């Protein structure tokens, strides 16, 4: 399982890369591996206002549909439309292939997320 230093992680297996006031969000290697072959992704609309914990996108593998929960609150400012044509990119590299970008409304929420080391421990306990 691949975990990258410098990112923030949620208990729902999303990662967050912080750039200024922006949060770039994707799902972790653990998540993509658990899901298996990803064949469809339902992206949110740009401009949507989301709260931390809201289901913001849906990743579907051959077997199941799985919600992506936003780890922080904010406004969707960008979505990765390349995933619409090639959802399998998430299987290939879940950290390179982000899902959406939020303009954060409360960066303080980041403190509730785990760092790489904490997330690795969390996954081991879950397994």
């Amino acid at each position, binding site marked *: 399982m691949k975990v990258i230093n410098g990112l923030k992680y949620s208990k729902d297996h999303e990662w967050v890369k912080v750039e200024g006031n922006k949060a770039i969000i994707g799902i972790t290697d653990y998540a993509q591996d658990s899901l*298996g*072959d990803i*064949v*469809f992704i*339902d992206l949110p609309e740009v401009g949507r206002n989301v709260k931390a914990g809201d289901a913001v996108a*849906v990743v*579907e*593998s*051959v*077997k*199941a*549909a799985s919600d992506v929960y936003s780890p922080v609150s904010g406004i969707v400012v960008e979505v990765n439309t390349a995933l*619409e044509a090639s959802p399998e990119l998430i299987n290939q590299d879940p950290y390179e292939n982000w899902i959406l970008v939020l303009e954060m409304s409360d960066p303080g929420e980041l403190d509730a997320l785990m760092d790489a080391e904490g997330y690795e421990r969390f996954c081991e306990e879950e397994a």
Partner: protein
Amino acid sequence: MLKLKKTPLYEKHISLGAKMTEFGGWIMPLQYTGILQEHEAVRRRAGLFDVSHMGEVMIRGRGATEFIQKLITNDISGMREFQVIYSPMCYPDGGTVDDLLVYKCDAEQYLLVVNAANIEKDVEWITTHKLHDVEVEDVSEQYAQLALQGPKSQDILQKLVDFPLDKIKFFRFVDGMNIAGVSALISRTGYTGEDGFEIYIPANSACKVWDAIMDAGEEFGVMPAGLGARDTLRLEAALPLYGHELSPDISPLEAGLDRFVKLDKPDFIGREALVKQKERGISRNLVGLEMVDKGIPRQGYGVQVEGRSVGYITSGSFSPTLKKNIALALLDIQYAEEGFQVDVMVRNKALKAKVVKIPFYAKQYKK
């Protein structure tokens, strides 16, 4: 928590790195390398499935034929030795107890192969209706079952068996074959829409035979395949899965299995109800759906027309072969016609789909 049952190949699956999943009270491999790869292997080359979770019930005795005639909806009166037939088994109200395969060994001995989740229920049902000169024995624990499926299946198995396999026609079997020193029953049957074989062997020899087939199949590109690929393959071939397309609430006529329901047979459990259903006309029918809008239909999703519920999805998935999103659905009869447009309720959004002909994927081989 209920303890999950393991097949004799459990350790093998773990050593192959399979992702395991619960299925019908069993812990089974969902996938090894990935559902898409395994699916493709079966369509193009061959895949080997562990299906030891399936149940086997031996029916013996002078009244065996008469008894099975009473139990199931299909007609076994014209069955030859070493033939296999598929049949639903019904409750008096026409709902489905299970769907099964009947192997005729001889006039007084038949092997029924039933669904894993239904073994106990079926054995109880069968025993309750037993005739006095019939013996019912649940032999599920004694057997392991492997399914070798795909266009290269015969080439692979032929390397291991000293018997011309092309002599085994579709839905026929041979018994007492020697595979790697193990006595096996081999039938030309399957659940994938491909040519292939199902192989019954003593449970304690399962690993030996698995290894022999994997070795023999290496040059043909055989892959171990899990329940995930089994499900996408059978869905493309529109083969029913108990608990989805068939259930106590769904009759075989509603599931479109009319050709396996012989209403002209003098009597069988459920006949009266099914005759009535046929005379009255069924109110809903199983159809194929293909999504027009983007989205994957899943079991249980509602189907609507102009905001009104007209049925639900029984099985749905991305189709790896067709690269489309497809489903089987039980729809009110007036909408169960090819070309009709309906809405599938995907997470509260109405997404367009159309009724299409099934199977989605037609067999590519000659019977």
